[in-house]
């Protein structure tokens, strides 16, 4: 999949797609993303009719349901052609790459493609479209980073996330071994193949623990819910944090 996106210039207004998981379980991470965009001088529009990108059904074999939900999102973000910023590489990848696939043989294909080209992952957008600069006001801390597979392989957003973390002068980033490897979430995979998923997240936790970091950052709440839930279950004292929330706290002291 191509990662070479054309980033908009002189952005004044963006749409924000919060994702269903952030909406239900991580709204503070979602708000932090909105705050970071506004801090960069951009007006944020949050359509209240938005819900979910449709990926759970799409990946589970229920294409018709996925398409129905996708259509509702496309409609909710149709009143203007502003960029659509998403605090998740996985949901962004779904809307960027898989929406056109889902509608490849439909009359709306070309409209869907135009929609998809407006979709960006939050960290990638902050770094590559808005060129944000951050001043760290927090205490020295050691963190590590987990890229969701789709942030890395569909949205090419890993380098941008690390560049943003790199701007925080008191934050030491220690990379984990096998950083490229999936944490075992995979949406319904984690409940359809719970044992394999458990083995994957157990190994991921060991790699995280080995870094000595006090927090594991990611741009995807699915991974954070999986890794964080497993660390809590096992009593591993590493805090799972969404990148946006972490940055927002650091720059506000």
């Amino acid at each position, binding site marked *: *999949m191509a990662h070479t996106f054309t980033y908009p210039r002189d952005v004044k207004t963006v749409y*924000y797609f*919060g994702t269903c998981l*952030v*909406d*239900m*379980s*991580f*709204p*503070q991470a979602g*708000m932090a993303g*909105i705050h970071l965009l506004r801090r960069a001088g951009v*007006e*944020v*529009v*949050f359509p*209240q*009719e938005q*819900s979910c990108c449709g990926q*759970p*059904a*799409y*990946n*589970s*074999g*229920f294409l*018709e*349901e996925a398409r*129905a*939900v996708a259509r*509702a999102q496309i409609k909710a973000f149709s009143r203007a052609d502003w960029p659509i910023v998403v605090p998740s590489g996985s949901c962004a990848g779904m809307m960027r790459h898989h929406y056109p696939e889902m509608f490849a043989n439909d009359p709306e294909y070309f409209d869907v493609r135009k929609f998809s080209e407006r979709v960006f992952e939050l960290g990638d957008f902050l770094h590559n479209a808005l060129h944000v600069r951050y001043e760290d006001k927090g205490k020295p801390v050691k963190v590590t980073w987990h890229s969701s*597979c789709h942030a890395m*392989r*569909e949205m090419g957003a890993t380098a941008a996330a690390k560049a943003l973390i790199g701007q925080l002068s008191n934050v030491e980033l220690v990379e984990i071994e096998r950083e*490229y*490897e*999936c944490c075992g979430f*995979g*949406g319904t*995979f*984690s*409940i*359809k*193949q*719970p*044992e*394999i998923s*458990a*083995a*994957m*997240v*157990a*190994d991921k936790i060991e790699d995280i623990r080995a870094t000595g970091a006090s927090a594991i950052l990611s741009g995807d709440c699915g991974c954070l*819910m*999986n890794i964080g*839930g*497993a660390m*809590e*279950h*096992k009593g591993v004292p590493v805090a799972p944090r969404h990148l946006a929330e972490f940055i927002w706290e650091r720059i506000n002291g």
Partner: protein
Amino acid sequence: MGSQHLDFTANVTEALADRQLRANFKSALTGLMKKRVAVLPDAAERERMRDDAEAAKRKALAKLPELLERLERRCTENGIIVHWAETTAEANEIILGIMRSHDATKLVKGKSMVSEEMHLNHFLESHGIEALETDLGEFIIQLNHEPPSHIIVPAVHKNRQQVGRIFADNLEGIPYTDVVEELNAIARKTLREKFRTGHVGLSGVNFAVAETGTLVLVENEGNGRMCTTVPPVHVAVMGLEKVVESLSDLPPLLRLLTASATGQLVTTYVNCITSPRKDGERDGPKEIHLVILDNGRSKMLADAQLRRTLQCIRCGTCLNHCPVYIRIGGHAYGSVYPGPIGKILTPQIDGLADKGVLATASSLCNACEEVCPVRIPIPGIIRRMRTEAYDEKGDGVVKGHGAKKNLLETLVWKGWELTYRIPALNRFVVSMLGRFGDKLPNVGPLKAWTSVRTAPRFASKSLHQLAKEEGIRHE
């Protein structure tokens, strides 16, 4: 194996509990991953080669019937006898017929995944013919009565101590050793005698070149060349997707095959077989047969998306990079082709009723797609297998489509659709979860989740609410 019942969950439980097995896979596959990168260090060059390799395979598939006919014509002109088999049973019968016509009772085999797909050894043994594997890895597991656990390194699940034990237990007069050089020497000595006395040699085919009628076979141990040159008769078996148009298609394919499979620039042997021994020549088989197997492949060819499964050159790198395969190993899949490629190939060959479960064993992390030398969109085809397994619209084409259709899941996803399509319902459900989500009964999916994780938490105020309260513009 097609008709065997696959208890994937039981296989997974057993594999995950085997610490030695997991350590063997992790160590071997991490090594293979590193070797691949070391031999393909320039990303831009690698991507260009992948473009060329993909193009060569897709071009060939786009005119496969024509190329197969041309291959048959050229091979026949060159003196190679071509046979067509629609099913594995037909292919087995053809090989049995060749053996019988020569009164042959000993077959020496080079590595061939198609022969595994045919369960050829078992078939021949039931007809009183000894089929001996001569690839070192295959030799080891044949002694131990196991199927391969990897398509390139079939004994990857064994460490050298285990190999030493297998040799000592199964070969006469061989004491235990775990010194690699000694193990190699034991295998070499045992196999040399077998080559000398084998009546017929069997091999697979990596690429069959239509313009010249050349069978290309790569290998490292020399056993392949022994099988194809020492016995008086050579039988090559191939799936019908192995044909490429011309010799000029080969360089990127060969380069990427060996780099992806074993991290080598080139294999020790690259055999190009074009004809049997000619008059006046002093060596080589007197007779060569080529058996071309369909076994469901032409059905894949007929569908634009499924066709891409046939691009596979069997390098096995998707296995090496798969976080699921690394942990459960090859045997857990209960199928000839394990790992990511197996998740799309096996259900198409054996059917979704028996093997559809394999497509659920993927987090869709896309690691396989990222490394596939011929750019097979494996995750997309895994999704297709899942969609075909439920076959909501009734337009499925894969064997056993709709096999997993059930009322419960259909209703769950219909409910999901309504919840995320209708904003008012979405607001209601999210607010209910915020209020009562921590009181959900720990059953079903939640129970699976909480076996190793704490339960998900639901915020008392959704992002929709927070954004509204903070006065974020909503249009």
